[in-house]
């Protein structure tokens, strides 16, 4: 089990977004197929650079063990005459198996005695099996986009230029014979395209570390984790040289790691006149066009950036000068846009939104602006929130105006941010420009919610309007969600939960649908409720049955929905809730069978029902009190006190009795209990759990 295998595909530059998944698929594919071939316990690791896909397998045997195999032939009585001499059948079978008649044996089979022969089957060698596995795994790799080249016979992520496949124990001497994408495997590879393009002999390497060291000497750092660590260290070094720190940007760093064979960085300079640009513009320009890390000093963007370079050095300073020049050109472009945009106020651009289509069925962004203004005001008024309605209306009026600025035309990701910057420059009130700037927050499950109440209301109104307009015709299905409606609904939930914003989303969904005169208001409610369920299970971290129990009772005021879910999750481990779930299920079942009447307490005379009546009154008082103090756990415990009286009630009392008045009174009592429970949760939905 001390053998190892190294496979390395050298390609033309592979897209950065294909690499992490390719590594995962290689590791999983090899592990799975090695296991199937009977090689268990192997360690499989995948590595990559922008031009290489590499797999290293340790813990392999030299091959499969030899094994014996019994092959049965004709029945014994057909193979041998009674005196024991072989018939033609026996001779034929022996010849077919390549043995002499003497070697045939008689074995007991289900249909009587049979002739059989035991043969030694040689196990296949590991290289043979590895060649097969490699063809299968590489052939089934899935990439975001594949291509053909040259004669057009082969399809892969990029053209393949070298196929290194080595096998061995302490040293890897055997070239595993392979044909892949028109190339034959060999024992050598090539170094970095520019730094050391010559061939590198790899036969005789002692393992992955040796392979990596030989590549390193040729300008290639093959382990992506090593490249990441070196990029970070080098970034900090280059920043420290000019008294700065690196502004953390993990997503960009992830991408830079995949863009190169050698983790080089150069420091570029930003001309001081560009430092007057809004920071967001500066950073987006450098990040978007140049994939550059930004340096900062005292929390502010400093006059430097770091750009990735696929080489260890910059011998004549060309790279740093080139990157600085390009950054300068891009920033000059951005300054030009900024100056153009500042010639007119944001407010003066609003009418031009008539020319920007929101959706083919739902008019322009000017139409949308009107709808959002109306809906935002409705939301604020119906929830009686302490917000400046004039500010909210102004923010909604200006919210989309940056879509017709040159800057957002160039950098779509700056929408909202630019609106905020231009509104501030136009001397709009802080409450207004901040709301505009924050309207697209949060971008997903991560990321902060708007900073102000005005911003939170604007963000919710804008997205509910989008849902109301588009849900019917652009319903997300599977991986298709071109208008990002799932993200919009989830953002609504997240803002309400985390700001927190106590608006009633059920009512808000209806208002939004009415505002657009759109059909399918119920479907939107259901869609938003689905996102809320997802939020409760994945962010709040409650179990699915808890989320169901809470939402089935009532939903809409998200901070309350979250509080109830947290409380139920906390108390549900208590055994009494199992009994309570069963009892409440009975309550609800019976209530479906008869219409409850008014509760005439004087008719209730059986001790068990008197007891339940008084327990309900106590529970109602305690639930009311606890909810007043926002102590949802205490309220749930108050419900739990009904478990025992309910149990006795169902044992001693026949609810659906003959006397109609009595039946109505008993049903009335149960209806009162149902109402009480549903203030908190439909506990009948809690899954009975094996403890």
């Amino acid at each position, binding site marked *: 089990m001390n053998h190892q295998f190294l496979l390395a595909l050298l390609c*033309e*530059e592979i897209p950065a977004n294909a690499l992490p998944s390719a590594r995962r698929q290689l590791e999983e594919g090899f592990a799975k197929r090695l296991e199937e071939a009977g090689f268990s316990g192997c360690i499989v690791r995948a590595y990559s650079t922008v031009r290489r896909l590499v797999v290293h397998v340790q813990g392999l045997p030299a091959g499969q063990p030899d094994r014996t195999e019994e092959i049965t032939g004709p029945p014994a009585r057909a193979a041998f005459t009674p005196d024991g001499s072989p018939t033609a059948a026996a001779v034929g079978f022996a010849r077919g198996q390549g043995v002499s008649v003497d070697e045939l044996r008689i074995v007991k089979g289900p249909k009587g005695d049979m002739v059989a022969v035991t043969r030694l089957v040689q196990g296949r060698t590991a290289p043979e099996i590895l060649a097969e596995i490699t063809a299968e795994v590489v052939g089934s790799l899935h990439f975001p986009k594949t*291509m053909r080249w040259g004669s057009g016979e082969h399809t892969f992520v990029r053209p393949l230029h070298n196929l290194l496949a080595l096998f061995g124990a302490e040293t890897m001497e055997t070239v595993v014979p392979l044909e892949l994408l028109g190339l034959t495997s060999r024992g050598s590879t090539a170094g970095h395209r520019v730094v050391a393009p010559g061939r590198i002999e790899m036969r005789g390497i002692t393992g992955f570390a040796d392979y990596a060291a030989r590549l390193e000497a040729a300008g290639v750092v093959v382990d992506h984790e090593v490249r990441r660590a070196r990029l970070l260290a080098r970034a900090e070094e280059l920043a420290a040289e000019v008294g700065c720190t690196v502004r953390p940007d993990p997503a960009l760093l992830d991408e830079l790691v995949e863009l*190169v064979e050698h983790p080089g960085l150069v420091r570029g300079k930003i001309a001081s006149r560009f430092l007057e640009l809004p920071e967001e513009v500066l950073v987006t320009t450098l990040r978007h066009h*140049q994939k550059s890390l930004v340096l900062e000093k005292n929390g502010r963007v400093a006059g430097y950036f770091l750009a990735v370079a696929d080489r260890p050095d910059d011998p*004549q300073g060309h790279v740093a000068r080139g*990157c600085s020049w390009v950054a300068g050109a891009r920033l000059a*472009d951005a300054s*030009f846009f900024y100056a153009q945009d500042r010639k007119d106020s944001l407010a003066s651009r609003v009418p031009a939104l008539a020319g920007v289509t929101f959706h*083919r069925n739902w008019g322009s962004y000017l139409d949308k602006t009107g709808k959002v203004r109306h809906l935002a005001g409705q939301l604020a008024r119906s929830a009686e929130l302490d917000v400046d309605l004039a500010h909210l209306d102004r923010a909604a009026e200006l919210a989309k105006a940056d879509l017709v600025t040159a800057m957002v035309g160039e950098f779509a990701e700056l929408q909202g941010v630019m609106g905020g910057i231009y509104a501030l420059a136009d001397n709009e009130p802080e409450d207004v420009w901040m709301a505009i700037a924050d309207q697209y927050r949060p971008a997903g499950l991560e990321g902060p919610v708007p900073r102000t109440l005005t911003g939170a209301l604007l963000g919710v109104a804008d997205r509910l309007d989008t849902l109301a307009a588009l849900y019917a015709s652009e319903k997300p299905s599977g991986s298709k969600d071109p208008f990002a409606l799932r993200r919009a609904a989830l953002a609504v939930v997240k803002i309400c939960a985390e700001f927190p914003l106590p608006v009633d989303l059920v009512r808000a969904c209806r208002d939004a649908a009415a505002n657009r005169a759109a059909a399918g208001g119920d479907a939107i409610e259901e869609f938003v409720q689905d996102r809320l369920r997802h939020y409760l299970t994945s962010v709040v971290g409650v179990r699915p049955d808890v989320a169901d129990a809470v939402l089935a009772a009532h939903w809409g005021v998200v901070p309350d929905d979250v509080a109830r879910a947290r409380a139920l999750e906390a108390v549900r481990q208590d055994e009494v809730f199992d009994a309570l779930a069963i009892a409440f299920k009975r309550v609800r079942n019976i209530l479906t069978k008869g219409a409850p009447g008014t509760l005439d307490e004087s008719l209730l005379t059986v001790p068990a029902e008197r007891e339940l009546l008084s327990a309900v009154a106590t529970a109602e008082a305690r639930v009311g009190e606890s909810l007043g103090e926002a102590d949802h756990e205490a309220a749930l415990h108050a419900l739990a006190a009904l478990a025992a009286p309910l149990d006795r009630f169902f044992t001693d009392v026949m609810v659906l009795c003959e006397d109609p008045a009595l039946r109505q009174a008993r049903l009335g009592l149960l209806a009162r209990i149902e109402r009480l429970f549903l203030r908190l949760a439909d506990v009948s939905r809690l899954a009975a759990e094996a403890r």
Partner: protein
Amino acid sequence: MLDSVPIGVFHAGEVSAVDLQDLILSLSRFWSDQGCIIQQPYDLEVGAGTMHPETFLRVLGPEPYNVAFVQPSRRPADARFGENPFRLGKHLQMQVILKPSPHEVQDLYLKSLTAMGIDPSTHDVRFEEDNWESPTLGAWGVGWQVLLDGMEITQFTYFQQAGGIDLQPIAAELTYGLERIAMFLQREDSIYDITWGGGVDYGKVRHRDEVELSRYAFHVADVEMLRRHFGDWEREAARCLEQEEPLVIPGLEAALKMSHLFNLMDARGAVAVTERVALIGRVRKLAVRCARAYVEQRERLGFPLLARQGGQA
């Protein structure tokens, strides 16, 4: 060689080692040495070198073909009245088509940089994913933008489909942005300051027509006339293709005129968002018919260029 000269010594107007015409001449010489036919620009308004029949048609079918040419490319909506230092309504592309794409095409490309005076061993050259698509031509490809020290200097594409037809063999298309490269090599901050040749700068040669073309595209062009001609050329293209022996080149030329008319209407702000896809679709439909007619025509002719397969590139 540029690399032996410290950067920063050039000033506007000074004749540098790599002026625009040197660039064109050295790239033409280089690709000629690689066995390319050096073609001339197409004599119609086109948005990109890809629309030149030497690209759009030659990449179709089984015949090998290697060609290079400069193509002035018009993008009326990118015009900026000669005021923006980086944007032009008409710019120059050097386009190279290598069909089938040779195994060492990236190395050939790097050698072409050396021919321009850029020694890759002292620069950072990276190939970053950038796929290309032309809805007008029913064409798409996979490839990269080539970054030289952070500057995008070339679009490098393996054509996968053109005129809606899956290609086999596959052609590599290299498109050098000539003004960009000249700006970069001369370290100029404005396109208009680069040296064209003979001590004359780009602005003196071209600034005035940028101003006029911008005014025409944004303010003057007669939208009704453009729209009418769009329909006229659409009918004309169809007529060409409906001949008993379809007229492929006249048909394609009519489709290219439609494409330019569309670009003018678009710059003029006369194309509604809803109408856009439909107009592009009308051009594509004809481009697709031209592509099919071309392949049939070549087949009838017995694919004459197959005989010289295995050209020098």
